[in-house]
C-alpha cells in the first residue's frame, strides 16, 4: 500500500511551518505504511556549503569523532549536528564529493542518506509518527518536503529500504507501487555508472531519474521519459533543489490527490492527508491524471 505526502510552499510566510504541516500530514498516513517512514526536507542553503545527511545503526560509536576524522581526510572544516540515528554534516561545497568518498572508504557503518545544498533525508523503521518525532520534523522549516509511510512489498523492512531514495544531489523520490522491470533497468543503469545501495525497486526509479537529469533533462522531462521506460505500478513524488514533481503510471491504481492554493501545492495519497492544511476549504483539489507529469519549480 504505502502512503505519500508532499508539500511545496509558494508563499515564503508559510516556510517556518513546513515541518509542522508535513508531520501532521504524515501522521494521517500511518496505517497505509506502518513498517517504516521517512521524509526529505529542503531547508536553507548556506553559501558555499554542502550538507550530507548520514545514518548509522550504531550512532554513538560511529558519530563520535566522525567530524574530526572527516575534516582530516578532506582537509577542510566539518560541522556535525546529530539527530538520533542520523547526523547532518556540513562541508565546503567543493569538498562534498571527497567527503562522500571518505565516508564510504573509512566509515563502513555510516550510510549516506542524502547530499546536496538544501536536502536532508531522515528515515527509519517504525511507526511513522514515532519516526517523525524522533527527528523533530515538526520543528523543521524549509521550502518543500516529501514524506512516505511504507508497507514493504519488494524488499526487506530496513532503514535503507525506507523512502525517500536519493541518488543525486538534492534529489529524492518516494514511490507507492511496485515496478516489474527494475532488475533489467538496474543492469543498464549500472553499466552507465549509477550505483545502488539496496535491492529496492524504488531506488531504481530514483536512479533512473538522476541518470536522465545527468543527461541534461529537467525533472519534468525526466518524468515524461519514465512513462516509456518504467513498467509497473507507480505514483511517484519527486523533489529537486527547487522543483516538485508528481507522476502516476497509465493504469493509475495507486491513489493520489492534490491541492493547490496561493500558498502551496500539496500531495496526499488520500484527502485525509490534506484535510488539516490551511485554507484547504478553498483550495483547488483534484486527482492527478494517469500518465501525466505535474511539475512545479520555484
Amino acid at each position: 500500500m504505502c502512503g505519500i505526502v508532499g508539500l511545496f510552499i509558494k508563499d515564503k510566510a508559510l516556510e517556518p511551518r513546513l515541518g509542522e504541516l508535513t508531520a501532521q500530514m504524515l501522521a494521517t498516513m500511518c496505517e497505509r505504511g506502518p513498517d517504516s517512514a521517512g521524509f526529505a526536507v529542503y531547508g536553507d542553503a548556506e553559501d558555499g556549503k554542502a550538507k550530507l545527511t548520514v545514518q548509522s545503526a550504531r550512532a554513538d560509536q560511529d558519530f563520535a569523532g566522525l567530524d574530526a576524522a572527516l575534516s582530516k581526510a578532506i582537509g577542510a572544516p566539518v560541522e556535525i549536528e546529530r539527530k538520533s540515528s542520523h547526523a547532518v554534516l556540513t562541508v565546503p561545497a567543493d569538498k562534498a564529493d571527497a567527503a562522500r568518498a571518505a565516508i564510504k572508504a573509512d566509515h563502513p557503518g555510516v550510510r549516506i542518506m542524502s547530499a546536496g545544498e538544501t536536502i536532508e533525508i531522515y528515515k527509519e523503521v517504525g511507526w511513522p509518527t514515532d519516526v517523525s518525532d524522533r527527528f523533530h520534523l515538526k520543528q523543521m522549516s524549509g521550502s518543500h518536503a516529501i514524506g512516505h509511510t511504507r508497507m514493504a512489498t519488494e524488499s526487506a523492512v530496513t532503514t535503507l529500504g525506507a523512502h525517500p531514495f536519493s541518488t543525486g544531489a538534492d534529489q529524492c523520490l518516494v514511490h507507492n507501487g511496485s515496478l516489474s522491470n527494475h532488475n533489467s533497468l538496474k543492469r543498464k543503469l549500472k553499466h552507465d555508472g549509477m550505483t545502488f545501495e539496496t535491492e529496492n525497486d524504488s531506488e531504481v526509479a530514483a536512479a533512473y531519474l538522476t541518470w536522465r537529469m545527468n543527461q541534461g533533462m529537467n525533472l519534468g522531462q525526466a518524468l515524461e521519459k519514465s512513462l516509456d521506460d518504467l513498467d509497473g505500478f507507480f505514483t511517484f513524488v519527486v523533489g529537486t533543489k527547487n522543483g516538485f514533481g508528481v507522476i502516476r503510471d497509465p493504469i493509475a491504481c495507486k491513489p493520489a490527490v492534490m491541492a493547490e492554493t496561493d500558498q502551496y501545492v500539496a500531495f496526499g495519497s488520500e484527502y485525509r492527508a490534506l484535510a488539516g492544511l490551511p485554507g484547504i476549504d478553498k483550495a483547488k483539489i483534484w486527482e492527478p491524471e494517469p500518465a501525466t507529469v505535474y511539475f512545479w519549480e520555484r
Partner: protein
Amino acid sequence: MRTIDLAVTPLRELNAELHRQSEGTNEAEWEVLNPRGLHAVAVGVDAPIKVAVRGPVGYYGGGMNKKATITIHGSAGPGVAENMMSGSVVVKGDASQYAGATGRGGLLVIEGNAASRCGISMKGIDIVVRGNIGHMSAFMAQSGHLVVLGDAGDALGDSIYEAKLFVRGSVKSLGADCIEKEMRPEHHDQLAVLLDKAGIKDVKTSEFKRYGSARKLYNFNIDNADAY
C-alpha cells in the same frame, strides 16, 4: 434531525447508529459533520433515511447502501457507493476511482468528474456523472446504466455485458467488444427517466450516443484456439 460530528464521535459509533435504523424509524434525517476524508462513512445503511455528509469522504463512502438517500457535500475517495443495493448516493464534488463498482441497484449521481474505472463490474446500478469519467470505466459492466454528460476516457466498456452506456461528450477509445449503438425511442425514454431522477434538466437526450456490447466475447470462438 440527528447531527453527528466526526470530530468528536468515532466513525464506528456513527455507522453503528445508522445500522440501528430500520423501516419506519423516527430518525429520518441525519447530518454528519467533519468527515475529513475518513473511510467508510455511512456504509451499510439499510433504512429509508436521509444522510447529509458535510465535507469530503475517503474510501467507500456510502458503500453497500440499501434504501437510504445519502448526499456527500464534498468529494469522494475510491469506491464511493460500491456495491450499492438500492436508494441513492449523490456526490456534490468529484469521485475517485471505481465509483459505484459492482453496484446492484439504486442511483449514484456524481455532480463533478469521476476518475478511472467508474462503474466497473456494475450489476444493475444506475450511475449519472455530470462531468467526465476516466479510463476503463464500465469494465465488465453487466447491467444497469451509466450516463456521462462529459467525456469518457480510454477503453470505455471493455468486455462489457448488458449494461447500457450513454455518453454526451467524446469517448477517447472503446474497449474490447464495446460498440456504438443506435439510440432508439426506448433509449431516449430510458435516458430521460435517468436524467430526471438525477435532477438534470439542462441537456437533451438527443445529445447522447449509446454504447453497449457487440456480444462477440460471449462465446469462445474456436478460430482463436491457437492463441491459447
